[in-house]
C-alpha cells in the first residue's frame, strides 16, 4: 500500500464502499463484465473521486472520461445505480453502505470500460447548425448585437446545455431508435431559433419523424438534466411551431 493510499484510508477511517464498475476491454472481453473495488467512503467524495481512486491506486487500466470535476464540461456522465448521472456531482454518501454500480451511459456503443462513442451525437448536433446564422450582411468584427433582458430570457435556459448526453441515455425513444435526433440537439436548435439575433431556419431538420415528431413525450430527459435545460419543453414547443407552419406556411418560427 502506498503512502497516499494509507493517508487516504486513515482520513476515511476504516469505512469503505464497494464500487461495481463495468469493464469492457475490446479484444479481451466479449461483453462488459463487472469488477468490484473497495474505495474509502469519504463524506465529500463524488463517484468520480471513487473512480479516480481506483485509477490512481488500484487499477490504472480503468478508462473513463472527465475533465472539469465541477459539472461544466459534461464529460463524466455515466449510469450510476441505473440512473444517468454526472459522476462529478453525485456523492458516494447518497448510496449508504453501497454497493454502487457504475456503467457507461445507456444507449451508446461502448468503446472501452465507461467510455462511450458519441460520434453519432456530434453529427446530429452539427445538423441543427448550433450557431448564430445571419444573412445578407458582412458586419465589422467589432459589431455588437444588443439584446434586451427579455430577448435573452427567451432562450437562456436552453443555452445552459453542456452536452453531457444524460438526456439521450434516459430517453427510451433514443434507445429504441438511435436515429432519433434527440433531446439535447433539439433543445440546442431551439436555443438558436429563439435567439433574436438568429436568422436561420431549422424547420427542415426539426420537422421530421426522426426529429421532433419522434418524441413521444416521456419527459425523462428533463428529469435527468443536471443543468435544468428542459429539453422536453423545447421539443413540444417546436411541435407546436412545426404544426402551425404546416398549416400557415408563411408564418416563421
Amino acid at each position, binding site marked *: 500500500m502506498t503512502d497516499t493510499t494509507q493517508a487516504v484510508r486513515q482520513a476515511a477511517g476504516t469505512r469503505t464502499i464497494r464500487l461495481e464498475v463495468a469493464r469492457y476491454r475490446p479484444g479481451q472481453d466479449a461483453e462488459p463484465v463487472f469488477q468490484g473495488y473497495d474505495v474509502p467512503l469519504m463524506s465529500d467524495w463524488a463517484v468520480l473521486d471513487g473512480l479516480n481512486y481506483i485509477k490512481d491506486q488500484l487499477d490504472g487500466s480503468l478508462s473513463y472520461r472527465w475533465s472539469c470535476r465541477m459539472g461544466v464540461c459534461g464529460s463524466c456522465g455515466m449510469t450510476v445505480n441505473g440512473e444517468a448521472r454526472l459522476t462529478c456531482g453525485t456523492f458516494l454518501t447518497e448510496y449508504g453502505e453501497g454497493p454502487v454500480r457504475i456503467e457507461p451511459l445507456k444507449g451508446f*456503443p461502448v468503446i472501452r470500460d465507461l467510455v462511450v*462513442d458519441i460520434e453519432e451525437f456530434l453529427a446530429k448536433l452539427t445538423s441543427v447548425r448550433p450557431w448564430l446564422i445571419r444573412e445578407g450582411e458582412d458586419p465589422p468584427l467589432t459589431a455588437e448585437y444588443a439584446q434586451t433582458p427579455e430577448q435573452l430570457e427567451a432562450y437562456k435556459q436552453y443555452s445552459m446545455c453542456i452536452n453531457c448526453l444524460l438526456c439521450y441515455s434516459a430517453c427510451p425513444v433514443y434507445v429504441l431508435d438511435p436515429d432519433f435526433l434527440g433531446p439535447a440537439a433539439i433543445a440546442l436548435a431551439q436555443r438558436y431559433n429563439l435567439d433574436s439575433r438568429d436568422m436561420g431556419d431549422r424547420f427542415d431538420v426539426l420537422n421530421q419523424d426522426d426529429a421532433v415528431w419522434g418524441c413521444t413525450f*416521456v419527459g425523462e430527459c428533463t428529469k435527468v438534466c443536471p443543468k435544468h435545460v428542459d429539453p422536453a419543453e423545447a421539443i*413540444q414547443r417546436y411541435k407546436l411551431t412545426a404544426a402551425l407552419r404546416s398549416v400557415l406556411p408563411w408564418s416563421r418560427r
Partner: protein
Amino acid sequence: MKAPPAAYRPRRDHLWFARTRNYTIFVLRELTSVFVAWSVVFLLLLADAVLGGRLAGFAALAAQPWMIALNVLALAATCFHAVTFLNLAPKATVVRLDGYRLPAWMIQGGNHSLWLAVSAVIAFFVLRGFH
C-alpha cells in the same frame, strides 16, 4: 495503422419500460390511447343510433354486462390518459403575459378545471334526460 476494435453495442433491453415507474406510466399512457379510440367509436355508434332512430337497440347493446365492463374499463383508462396528458400540457404551452410567464400549475389547473366544467355540463344534460 491498425483500425481500433469495434465498439460494443449493448443488446436492446426488451423490458426497459418495466425498469422505472416513469417509463411504466408513459407506456400505460400510450396503451390507453386504444380505449380513447374505443370511446370515440362508441360515441359515434350512439350518435348514429340516435339519428337513425335505433336508440332502443343501441341501449340494449350498451346494457349488456360485457359492454358495461368494457366501458367501465374504458372510462378508467381514458381518465388516466386525460390526467397524465393534461399534466404534461404546461411543457408544450409557454404562455407569456407582458413578460410574465404563466406558471405550469396555472396551465395545468386551467386544463383540469375546463375538463371538469365540460364534464359537468355534459353530466347535467345527460342526467336531466333520465327524469
